[in-house]
């Protein structure tokens, strides 16, 4: 359903359009599968939003033209609006691009009009109602920590998690439907991890960029500088057992770049990386091969440890 406040949504059965994006269905489909497992089990209905496309990602239409960016985003938002539901994304870039576009359309009638002129050619109209929610916020605010605690079969007692909320989970807070109390000191992902029994302490580079996206494609060396510093900080300050993120891009970067840095002899440690929906799916007892089967930095040991010693 589409609503401005969470209290409204709690009255009815939760239903969202599952917005996939690109990296999740093609690169990390285990994240998609994790969402398809956990949400129905938590009594959240998901709609496939058949015919959805790229959000559009930053390197495409947002780099060409504002109206074109908004038009592609609006078509995706329409797919939810037509069914009276909000979208829900596990990719921070999708969450950012869709909500920034919506913010532009709502605050600039000229953009909204031009977008609807284009949409009219395919028989659609965007009214600005449907928005994109982030899966982590849906879990935190709509499902709730108590329900998450009740749903898990394995707990993470004794494990230390380094959280990576990722940029578009936080900024610019003005455009997002859900906001951290302090966008430069995020708590939501830490709370979500603690609900599974883990410790999720602060570390100095918690909000630092992972170096993914345009930075990595433009200058890999500079990108790896950032991710290396972040990983070293995680190792030195909190010696984390695993890294948990709410962004599919951060997931790919922290997992993939870590392996490259090891091969180049630039780091000597290995910390498994998971998207939060994957971690929750593992704790709920879903098949690790299906919900966390794709990675570069090995996960076998941590998954074994969770399944062997975490049984509740």
């Amino acid at each position: 359903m589409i609503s401005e406040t969470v209290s409204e949504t709690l009255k009815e059965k939760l239903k969202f359009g599952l917005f996939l994006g690109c990296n999740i269905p093609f690169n990390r489909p285990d994240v998609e599968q994790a969402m398809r497992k956990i949400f129905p089990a938590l009594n959240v209905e998901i709609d496939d939003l058949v015919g959805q496309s790229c959000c559009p990602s930053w390197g495409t239409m947002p780099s060409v033209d504002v109206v074109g960016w908004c038009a592609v985003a609006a078509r995706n938002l329409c797919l939810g609006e037509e069914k009276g539901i909000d979208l829900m994304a596990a990719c921070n870039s999708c969450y950012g691009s869709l909500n920034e576009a919506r913010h532009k359309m709502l605050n600039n009638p000229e953009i909204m009009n031009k977008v609807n002129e284009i949409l009219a050619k395919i028989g659609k109209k965007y009214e600005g109602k449907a928005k994109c929610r982030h899966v982590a916020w849906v879990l935190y605010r709509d499902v709730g920590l108590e329900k998450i605690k009740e749903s898990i079969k394995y707990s993470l007692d004794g494990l230390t998690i380094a959280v990576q909320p990722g940029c578009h989970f936080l900024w610019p807070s003005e455009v997002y439907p859900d906001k951290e109390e302090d966008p430069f000191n995020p708590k939501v992902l830490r709370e979500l991890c603690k609900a599974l029994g883990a410790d999720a302490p602060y570390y100095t580079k918690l909000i630092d960029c992972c170096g993914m996206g345009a930075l990595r494609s433009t200058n890999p060396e500079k990108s790896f500088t950032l991710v290396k510093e972040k990983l070293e900080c995680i190792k030195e300050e909190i010696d984390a057992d695993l890294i948990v993120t709410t962004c599919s891009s951060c997931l790919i970067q922290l997992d993939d770049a870590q392996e490259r840095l090891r091969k180049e002899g630039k780091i000597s440690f290995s910390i498994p990386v998971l998207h939060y929906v994957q971690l929750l799916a593992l704790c709920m007892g879903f098949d690790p091969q299906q919900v966390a089967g794709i990675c570069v930095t090995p996960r076998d040991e941590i998954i074994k440890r969770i399944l062997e010693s975490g049984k509740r």
Partner: protein
Amino acid sequence: MEVMEGVPPVINLTEVARTEKEEFEKKVSELIIEFGAENLLACMQCGACASICPLARVGFEWYNKKLIKAILIGMKEELLDDSTPWACVACNRCTEICPRQVSPFEVMFAMRRLMVEELAISTLAIEGDRSLYEHGHAVYMTGREARKKVGLPEKPPTTDSDEKALQELRTILKNTKLAELGLIPME
């Protein structure tokens, strides 16, 4: 310029340079505003954006604050030659922290749009647009082993498996600047 019969005209180069420069300065900042950075002129160069920018952190030449300064003083050619805007991760730390609501991110992306308009871009920069038009996805892979491995259908329920939806998206793209500029082939 007044021309007297029999006397060759004298071109006042200083005057030409001054007026041309004024025109030029006006143009760069105006274009950047037109391309989405509506609040460009509110910048007071405090540097809050630079203090928090990942690009500034790793040593890119034209990070947010410096780019804005360069635009405000009317530089153009130097900026069109530089790839910094294409490295921007769109993280919006700068937008969040800016005390003047300039949104340096929008300036960075308006610069990208200006470079696109002037065709001062690499072919890599439009690869995503091409893929978006062809498949409906900026990142697209034909190999579907990973999807099968995790127990999902080979194709996701997107434009990838929905021809009508893909045509809708193409119709939209054909009515945007992407088509106007002829950046990618559109049949």
